[in-house]
């Protein structure tokens, strides 16, 4: 035990303000860095409009406040709240499917009279929390029945969100659940089995896909097949990134971005703006920020003191990793277009708050560790 915990021991005097405020300095400063970087890119993507930056700043303010508040909640209390959050989240999803507001072709919003919000955002946190909570109460690695239960816990909200349809979020939720199960020691045999099963299920998934989703897959395989239709996004974003070269065309000088050739340039395709104006080096900088965040998150996971927090921290960090890999893969034409923003760079509302809340959880896990004497 001493060996196990002693590794995590840190001198009380070193802890200082981080522990009092329940903030993690490496994570916090990297987040601030990447958000500032995002604002710079957003200013350009918005066509030099300061308004869009101001609105994003307000959102970031809310998001950082949210993060700070979440960080104050001890992990033990989070675990106690987990089943409630999960059940309420599922109920909300049900409500969305029955009475949700349609926006942009998909039912995602629930009007609560006070705020309109997307219950799917809550589930991004509730699902990994729920699965982690469930599996941490059992002996690892989980047996088949436990895996089945975990599978149901993941699949139910995921399918409900996919039905809205919001493939991007469904994908994130599925991966966050999967990461918990994987970290909990999912047997390799079973992993292989699930992989085969998923591959076999592809035609079935194809069958249930919406036309526009199918089109996106076709577009990925051959964007030039419909250069003015669905292939346009990908073609233009590849031109933007490719023409950026190593050093980029310079801030506010991206012709693809500034002259409207790049669609969705302040939201899902903002990565192409960054690639065009700041080049490969600018992208390296972004990935440096992201890598620090993921690595720091995984450090927090392995340093955590119980199974629940380890599983949760690991899952949240890796989900973030999926988040930006999927977005950049999509913008560079490696993955089909799924509606996922570039985390902390894209202009957008609810998702940034959820994302920062997840970092709040990481910080809470890191700073609520018990001090154990050696």
């Amino acid at each position, binding site marked *: *035990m001493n060996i*196990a915990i002693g590794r995590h021991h840190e001198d009380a005097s070193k802890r200082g303000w981080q522990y009092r405020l329940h903030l993690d300095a490496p994570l916090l400063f990297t987040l601030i860095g990447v958000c500032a970087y995002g604002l710079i890119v957003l200013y350009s993507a918005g066509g030099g409009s300061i308004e869009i930056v101001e609105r994003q700043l307000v959102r970031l303010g809310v998001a950082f406040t949210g993060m700070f508040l979440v960080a104050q909640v001890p992990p033990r209390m989070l675990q106690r709240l987990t089943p409630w959050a999960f059940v309420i989240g599922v109920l909300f999803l049900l409500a969305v499917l029955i009475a949700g507001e349609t926006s942009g072709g998909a039912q995602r919003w629930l009007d609560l009279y006070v705020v309109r919000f997307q219950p799917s955002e809550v589930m991004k946190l509730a699902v990994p929390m729920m699965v982690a909570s469930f599996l941490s109460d059992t*002996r*690892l*690695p989980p047996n088949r029945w436990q895996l089945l239960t975990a599978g149901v816990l993941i699949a139910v909200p995921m399918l409900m969100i996919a039905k809205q349809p919001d493939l991007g979020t469904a994908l994130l939720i599925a991966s966050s659940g999967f*990461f918990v199960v*994987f*970290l*909990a*020691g999912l047997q390799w045999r079973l992993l292989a089995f699930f992989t085969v099963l998923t591959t076999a299920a592809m035609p079935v998934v194809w069958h249930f896909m919406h036309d526009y989703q199918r089109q996106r897959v076709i577009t990925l395989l051959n964007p030039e097949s419909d250069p003015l239709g669905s292939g346009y996004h990908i073609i*233009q974003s*590849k*031109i*933007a*990134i*490719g*023409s*950026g*070269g*190593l050093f980029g065309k310079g801030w506010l000088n991206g*012709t*693809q971005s500034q*002259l*409207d*050739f790049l669609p969705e340039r302040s939201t899902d395709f903002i990565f192409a703006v960054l*690639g065009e104006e700041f*080049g*490969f080096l600018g*992208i390296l900088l972004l*990935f440096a920020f992201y*890598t620090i965040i*993921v*690595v720091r998150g*995984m450090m927090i*996971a*392995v340093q955590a003191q*119980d*199974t629940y927090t*380890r*599983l949760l921290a*690991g899952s949240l960090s*890796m989900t973030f*990793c999926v988040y930006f*890999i999927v977005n*950049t*893969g999509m913008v*560079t*034409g*490696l993955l089909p277009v799924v509606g996922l923003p570039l985390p902390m760079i894209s202009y957008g509302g609810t998702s940034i708050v959820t994302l920062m809340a997840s970092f709040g959880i990481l910080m809470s896990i890191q700073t609520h560790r018990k001090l154990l004497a050696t």
Partner: protein
Amino acid sequence: MPTRLTLKDHLFESRLIMQRAILLVVIGGVLCLILFSRLLYLQVVEHEHYTTLSEDNRVKLQAIPPNRGLIYDRNGILLAENLPSYRLEITPEQIDDMDATLDALSAIIEILPNDRTRFEQLVQRKPRFESIPLLFHLSDEEVARFSVNRHLFPGVDITAGLARHYPQGPLAVHALGYVGRIDEQALKDLDSSNYRGTTYIGKIGVEKTYEALLHGKVGLQQVETTAQGRVLRVLNRMAPESGHNLYLTLDSRVQRAAEAAFGTFSGSAIAIDPENGHVLAFVSLPTYDPNPFVNGIDHATYAALKGDDRQPLFNRALRGQYPPGSTIKPFMGLAGLELGVTNTHSSTYCPGYYTLPGNERKYRDWKRTGHGTVNLDIAITQSCDVYFYDLALSLGIDNIHDYLGHFGFGRATGIDILGELPGLLPSREWKRRRHNQPWFPGETIITGIGQGFFLVTPIQLATAAAALANGGHILQPNIVYAGQAANSSALIPYAPRLLENITINNQSHWDHVINAMINVVHGARGTARAIGADSPYRIAGKTGTAQVFGLKEEEKYVAAELDEKLRDHALFIAFAPAEKPKIAVAVVVEHGGGGGSVAAPIARKILDAYLLGSKP
């Protein structure tokens, strides 16, 4: 659960999660490496390719059409100009429902069905971000009405451009011509790069002949555009080179007087400066207003012009081929004198008809009672046909063909307006070729008075008259006096072009014929004495009457009894002042009747307008 077990599990789980976490980070790292290689491929390996694509996206080449050169008359009076004109243009990309938009627009501004059809065809052909003209030449009122309602029509715009306008309207339209919109056919024959952005091209007349000069050189600009095709800024500009201005030889004062002098008659008149071949007046009547042609004449107006019996679109001056009638007699007389077939003293008896030896057929004189004994002077003055029947027979068709050929009959004068016809100076060779028949002596006889196969165009007749006036210099008639490069005040004159110098064997022969022509106008029995009496300067002239309708031998020609369409053409050639000619004219009045009574007074008005400067 026993504590020991939990602790054991705890260690195991901690190690398990650690392993799995490291595995995940490694997998994440591998994915990032895949992404990096993708980015390196896009941004380094294919960088050039994508840079090109991005430039193609952003930079578009736009043509700036040059301003078309202006056309003035010799005194600097504007004949063709470019006026600002407002066009209504629509950018299809910005229109959701084109039909609804057009319907709503037509409530404000009238849109004719063929405008709409033409527009809809263009919409199919052009890129959606390019604005397409719907209406040309909006009136100020229409512009105002649209401007008030503009907010209702996003994607519909009024643009200002320059449109060709002919301030003098129908004046000299057959010389000046007009421009029209370039059609597909014309585009094939053009240097299409120079015509990028050009709307108009010369269709006929000077506008067509001097198209290359008037048009100028296209300018180009590289513009940066948005994805919607909206121009943001000009990156690079090569200014267009405006077309040359042209100064015509026409004197619009004389032109106007000439056109007015015809009254309601159809016909043609050409006035030439015998010193240099400058065409001072170029009349073909009826005329028409070229302005409706500029932006595409509407069907009804065009059908009316086309269907008009009087054929206003027909360029009589260049393409009207008429028998020269008696106007040929001075040339015949010269031929007789110069070739030694006759002399100024020899005379012929005119009983009012002429017969070939051993042939019953009578060739009538216009005067049934005959002219009695006539010499060349009287024959020209009184226009005796019998004298010239005899002379023609003495000369023979070969001599006639050769000598009159020197005056330019039977071949195009080469005036700088396209579409000229050559007329017809008959010859044995021609007859065999054309009709596969030998030449008959009777045909020589009527050729002698400008009938039969003989056909001339008014421009030929005027050129020949000018040669009589200037002592035998055949000058190519020209309609453009000088050109003027854009941004330059210097006029570049067009040199007169001498086609031929007629050999003069004896100057007195010429003097004799010219003197006879003076007698035509100023002599007591001259056929055009009516215009000579009050003339402040001396005129040398010759009347002519061209038969349209072949009378049977014994029928008497009574003009009044004939349908106007069958009435003879009246002709007159003249130059003045006779001593030092400054102007030569040829007048053809279709179905005018008599040369002396109808054509000569018109010629007199033209001469007056030029020599006296009297306003019509």
